[in-house]
């Protein structure tokens, strides 16, 4: 087998992550992706036609809609395009793997890969919801009306979509799908109970994440953020984490909060659903030289490990969380202490805390100051596929900023699989 090529992360950009639904007058999934793609491609000498492939992942498209194809058309690009679209949070990581594999195997030279999620209900539902909520506001003196709201929201979201319009704007954000949500919460809850993570610790971590985000925002450490410009004239140029209390927001965030089987998890330690898009530009060495591209970092091929929920033996062994990381380190012949920074997916605070707990013996995760140093999705809001790209982009910039060498992006996804990917920042390479 021929040697694998090095994969370079050249550039990337993302939109702010928004926990408010803006789809009624805002960006559709396609427009979000296009907006970010423009930002990524603008500073480079090749035009969109120079791209070999566009790979997008989204939880907001149904299987019939090819987001990447539409994106390619709007960018004026004739590249091979593929969309990975599924209602789980693994789509982004799969897209990333596909892109880096294609470059490593010398099939493609320049790939635009990204993830996009929108907080959306189909237009019909949103219309009904808005009119109903206006009515509710009017009649708010009546207790019956007040009580009807959560029930109505639940009913509206549980109803399968009846839209037949073939656009990217019809299906609902993964985190707003009640089934997925229940599974996710159960999974987090089980983990919390098994590893004796208390609610206080989870809350403490959630607060830490928010403080870190605020610090990064204040000191302009958030990398490659592309502001969103709306037609009504307002601009969002920073992540709008946290919850607000207007009706539309409530309608889209309520479901992430209303199902809590045993009160093990508090509201704050589960990341709220958010919308956003992130795009990365990956390139082979030939493309880097050809177009004189600046290099942010090099990527290893991702490592996956699978742990099923029922596999209690492995869970008890105390190594399950780090299985993918261990495999990755073994592949790369690195030790834990050689890793400078970590980006760990924090869909719930449990994920990070369990990882920390399990890693203590290796003394890598023990100090949280090297994990998610600029805040994570607990503070930002969780746009599952876009977040995969965001973690990579943020880690690359963190390495560059602090002149560090290596970082690992790791995630545990809802079906129990783990993911780990190594980023290396080489000074020589940048020169």
């Amino acid at each position, binding site marked *: 087998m021929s040697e694998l090529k090095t994969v370079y992360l050249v550039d990337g950009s993302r939109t702010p992550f928004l926990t408010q639904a803006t789809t009624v007058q805002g960006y559709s999934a396609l427009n979000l992706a*296009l907006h970010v793609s*423009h*930002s990524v491609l*603008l*500073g*480079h*000498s090749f*035009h969109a036609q120079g791209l070999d492939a566009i790979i997008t992942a989204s939880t907001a498209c149904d299987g019939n809609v090819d987001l990447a194809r539409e994106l390619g058309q*709007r960018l004026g690009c004739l590249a091979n395009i593929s969309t990975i679209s599924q209602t789980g949070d693994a789509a982004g990581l799969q897209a990333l793997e596909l892109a880096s594999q294609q470059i490593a195997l010398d099939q493609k030279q320049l790939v635009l890969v990204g993830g996009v999620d929108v907080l959306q209900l189909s237009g019909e539902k949103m219309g009904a919801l808005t009119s109903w909520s206006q009515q509710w506001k009017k009649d708010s003196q009546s207790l019956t009306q007040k009580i009807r709201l959560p029930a109505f929201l639940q009913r509206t979201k549980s109803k399968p979509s009846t839209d037949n319009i073939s656009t990217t704007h019809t299906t609902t954000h993964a985190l707003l799908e009640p089934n997925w949500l229940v599974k996710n919460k159960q999974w987090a809850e089980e983990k919390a109970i098994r590893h004796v993570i208390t609610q206080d610790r989870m809350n403490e971590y959630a607060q830490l994440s928010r403080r870190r985000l605020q610090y990064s925002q204040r000191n302009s450490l958030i990398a490659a953020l*592309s*502001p969103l*410009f*709306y*037609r*009504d*004239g*307002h*601009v969002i*140029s920073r992540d709008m984490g946290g919850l607000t209390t207007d009706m539309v927001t409530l309608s889209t965030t309520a479901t992430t909060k209303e199902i809590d089987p045993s009160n093990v998890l508090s509201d704050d330690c589960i990341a709220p659903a958010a919308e956003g898009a992130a795009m990365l530009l990956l390139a082979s060495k030939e493309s880097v030289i050809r177009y004189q591209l600046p290099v942010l970092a090099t990527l290893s091929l991702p490592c996956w490990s699978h742990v099923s929920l029922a596999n209690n033996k492995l869970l008890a062994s105390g190594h399950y969380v780090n299985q993918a990381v261990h495999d990755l380190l073994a592949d790369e012949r690195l030790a834990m202490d050689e890793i400078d920074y970590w980006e760990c997916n924090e869909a719930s605070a449990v994920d990070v805390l369990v990882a920390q707990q399990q890693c203590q013996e290796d003394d890598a995760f023990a100090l949280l100051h090297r994990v998610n140093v600029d805040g994570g999705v607990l503070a930002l809001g969780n746009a599952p596929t876009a977040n995969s790209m965001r973690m990579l982009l943020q880690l690359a910039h963190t390495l560059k900023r602090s002149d560090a060498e290596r970082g690992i992006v790791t995630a545990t996804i809802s079906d129990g699989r783990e993911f780990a990917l190594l980023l290396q920042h080489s000074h020589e390479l940048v020169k």
Partner: protein
Amino acid sequence: MSSLQYFRVKRRAGDVVWLTITIPESEQHEINAAFLYEFIEVLGSIQDQGVSGLILRSARPEVFLTGIQADTLSLLSNEGAKQKAQGFFTLGGQLCQNLQNMTCPTVAIIDGACSGAGIEIMVACDYRILIDKGSTRLSYPEVDDGYHIGFGGLSRLIDQIGFDNTLDFLVAPHSYDVETAVRSGLADAVEPLHKAKWLARQWILYPDSTDDLGYQLPNSERILPPSLIVAKSSFNGRLNNASALELNVLEAMIDTWTAYAGEELEAQQEEIKTATALLSSKPTQNKLYIKHLLATLKQEYVQAYPIEQRSIPQHIHIIGSGTIGKYMTKLCVLQGLKVSLYDVRHAALASVPHEMYAFFKSVYPDRPLRIQQALDTIILDVHNAGVKQADIVVEAIQEDKHAKLSLLLEVDKKSKPDACIITSTACLPLDELSQDMLHPERLVGLNMGHPLFDAPCAELIISNCVSAEKLEQAESFAYLIEKTPIPIKSSAGFLSSRLLMAYLTESLMLHQSGISKTDIDQAALAMDMTYPPFELLDELGLEECLKVSEALSDRLGYDIPKLLMEKVGKGLKGKHSGEGFYTYKNGEKQTNILESIRHKLPWRVDEKSIQTRLLERLINESRECLNLGIVEHADLIDLITVIFVGFSASKGGTLSYLDSYKKVAAQQAQAAKTVAKETSKTEAE
């Protein structure tokens, strides 16, 4: 019949003759005398040949027929070419008469732009079908230039669609799209091309099916005598916004119609006379002279640089999203160029999506895909990333020398080595702006004026050190965005800002001396200036005017009007802030009660003296510019005064006006001398 130059004649099934027009020498299908001769000949050969019908269409898909070819027009509008003009119009009148008198039905299929002569020929046909697409538009732009195509079309139009509708059509600020045209009765049907052909044959072969066609005149126009209909129309304020040149045409049309209503032949004969008179009138000739200047500039460029030799930019990076930045973005996007728009202020960029959406929605109504395509080419760049890759970088920030200096230095360092750097400064000399640049030869100025003027040309500012290659690049860019560049030597205020500020400063000085702004505005309007000075100041923005005024004052020793400084000091910035010299509410000028009754007051301000001062200042400034050699020819000063200062086109620009004034004065002096001589003779006798 000898071989035809302009027509393809095909006799097809059902004895229907298809007459396809092609005018090879004119891309816009403009007509000339040869075309008219050949058309008459073709019609003569078809007549009485057992033809069941005639279908008229154009071979070019985007245009049917438009106006008169420029060469022909300049021949006809020359002084002393009255007979030629009359001959030409008589020929056209004859053609339309023949077309109307054809024994078989005639159908015109209009696919693309149709204006002027096209309208005259179209209305002589029995039926008209418009092709349902955006580029099918009907207009009569000749009225704006102060003449009409005297083929008898105006009386036919009134007969067919009524007086009110004709008036609306002639003075409409925009051309009519297919829907408006059908609604006003100008066409009988709107169909896609394949169906239009079928329909035209159908109407010819089965004439019964066309019974329900035909525009129904409003009841009042059937009952009332012409004079009352005219009175009603003018009472409705239809002519309020018409310019002096338009009014000349409309007056001629109304006179003809009221005098010869119902007498078709006489009315058409009269139209030939009025068209000839209007075309040879001084105001129309001056207007055509200005147009001719522009056309000549364009033609010279096209000859010097054929399209394959021009450098076509792919990516334009615009820095500054103010009025000029946005205007330039629109122009670039209309030509399909990719634009990245950068501004340090996110708030300034925030207004862009809405404004662009509204603009392209008006340009491409009911074409969401086209709007989306246009909007996709605009990239709001918050990191100034586009500067590195753009072929042309445009600086469009505020008129601040130091800000421009540092920005241009940065752009010079960051941009591609072969990129052309364009500054949109309205008054700062280029040599001052390029002093810090590493490559000053890359800097070219392109002053397009305020979007309000919507000028068809732009000032191409040439500094001493600019390279020929970059100049050609900038020139090509200007042509690409449909702004004919006028080469101007770099100096303070260039030409347009200098003349415009002379006009505005003089008005402000007059106002400072105690004359009311309304009187000055009215006097300016009365001398046929396009923009009254104080309304113009409010539109342009007082702050911007002050900045330009300060720049000119430093370099040319202009006075800065105290009043302007006071207004800006008070925070009154003009129309967009709600108050300047006038107050505005929702963009509408509010009339002061005192101003509204001013004309009823017993005393009058001497309008003539105000006009003289404004004229004198403008003419003196123009002469100085000419003496300084800012432009090569006096013609260009005329062009700039008309387009950028709003000087009356019917006067033909400041220097042209001065010439004609001198001639008249000399004639008067000569006449006075003769009279004096005769008087002295008689006295001696």
